[in-house]
């Protein structure tokens, strides 16, 4: 099902660019002009411009915009430091905070008619998940060296034949669970909104789903970040 009206796609079509009429494009240019790509750039531009505009000149006694960012960033910083430790937070804060802001804005932007959530594409969510997955293994190796393998062999040596496959599968399943959870939730929201909009948009039928959509968008962003923090914290811990 194609999204009803996406203003960026319409603009690109008017410019003569090949916007795919389906979920994905076939040529490279079509793939780049796919709505989830263009809306990703929109979200990126939005985050960059908003933060640039709201943080004109920083003061010791914060004003409106600075106050908001201080609460958001200070809150995340405290939360990450509580769970991963101060040192790891200082290193990884930009990555995890970017995930939080990007996913929250990308999820919420789909609630506005004419926009779509970039997170309703598996390519976006899987890209985020792969970064998290690689990062947590890199942190595990850096923290424990080659002893990191002990995370995968269970508590006793004679349980290795049982535990090793289970641990490996559960670790690789993180790739699927993180990406498909976010993708599934947001795609379901987008699809449902699209259908309701087409069926009875004039009667405000999508409104209840939009209310739920706000909740789902924020909860999914929180879940993704929470799991990222948990995976990184686990990778740092000693194996049992």
């Amino acid at each position, binding site marked *: 099902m194609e999204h009803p009206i996406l203003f960026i796609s319409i603009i690109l079509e008017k410019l003569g660019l090949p916007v795919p009429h389906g*979920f*994905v494009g076939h040529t*490279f240019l079509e*793939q*780049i002009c*796919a709505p*989830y*790509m263009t809306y*990703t*750039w929109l979200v*990126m531009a939005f*985050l*960059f411009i908003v*933060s*640039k505009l709201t*943080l004109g000149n*920083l*003061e*010791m006694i*914060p004003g409106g915009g*600075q106050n908001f*960012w*201080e609460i958001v*960033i*200070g809150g995340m*910083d405290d939360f990450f430091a509580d769970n991963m430790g101060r040192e790891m937070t200082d290193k990884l*804060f*930009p*990555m995890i*905070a*970017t*995930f939080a*802001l*990007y996913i929250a804005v990308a999820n919420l932007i789909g609630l506005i008619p004419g926009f779509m959530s*970039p997170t309703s*594409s*598996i*390519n*976006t969510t*899987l*890209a*985020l998940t*792969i*970064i998290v997955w690689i990062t947590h293994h890199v942190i595990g190796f850096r923290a424990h060296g080659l002893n990191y393998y002990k995370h995968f062999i269970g508590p006793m040596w004679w349980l290795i034949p049982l535990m090793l496959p289970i641990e490996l599968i559960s670790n690789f399943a993180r790739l699927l669970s993180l990406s498909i959870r976010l993708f599934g939730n947001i795609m379901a929201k987008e699809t449902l909104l699209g259908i309701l909009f087409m069926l009875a948009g004039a009667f405000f039928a999508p409104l209840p789903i939009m209310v739920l959509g706000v909740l789902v968008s924020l909860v999914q962003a929180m879940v993704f970040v929470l799991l990222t923090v948990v995976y990184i914290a686990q990778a740092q811990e000693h194996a049992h």
Partner: protein
Amino acid sequence: MITMDITLVIQMINIIILMFLLNKVLYKPVLGILRERSKKMKGTQEEIERFDKDARLRQEEVDKKMAQASSKAKAALDSARTEAAAAGNEKLAAIKAEVDADREKKMSELKSQIDSAGKSLQESLDTFAGDMAGKILGRSL
């Protein structure tokens, strides 16, 4: 619907670019000011504690000085009181001695007068007795 293609890699690059951008315009400045503020707050707190300690020390010093001054004043008062009492007693003793001397002198004068009066009376006793007897008898003896 679930199709993975080259955009997966582009999205990864996008996110990494966004990380750098936001780190530059958002995280670094905000975290910097948060840290600066907490440092400043800590500094102010330390300053408050230092001032508090200073004030307490000064109060103690003032109390000590007050106690010293009070004991000094008390000692001065006591010594002045003793001096005044001693001076009073001395003066009293001098007056008493003067009065005693005066009295002695007056007493001795009085005594000498009594004695001289007694003596003169004694001397004129015979004359008086003769005169009295002559008056009683109505003739001279």
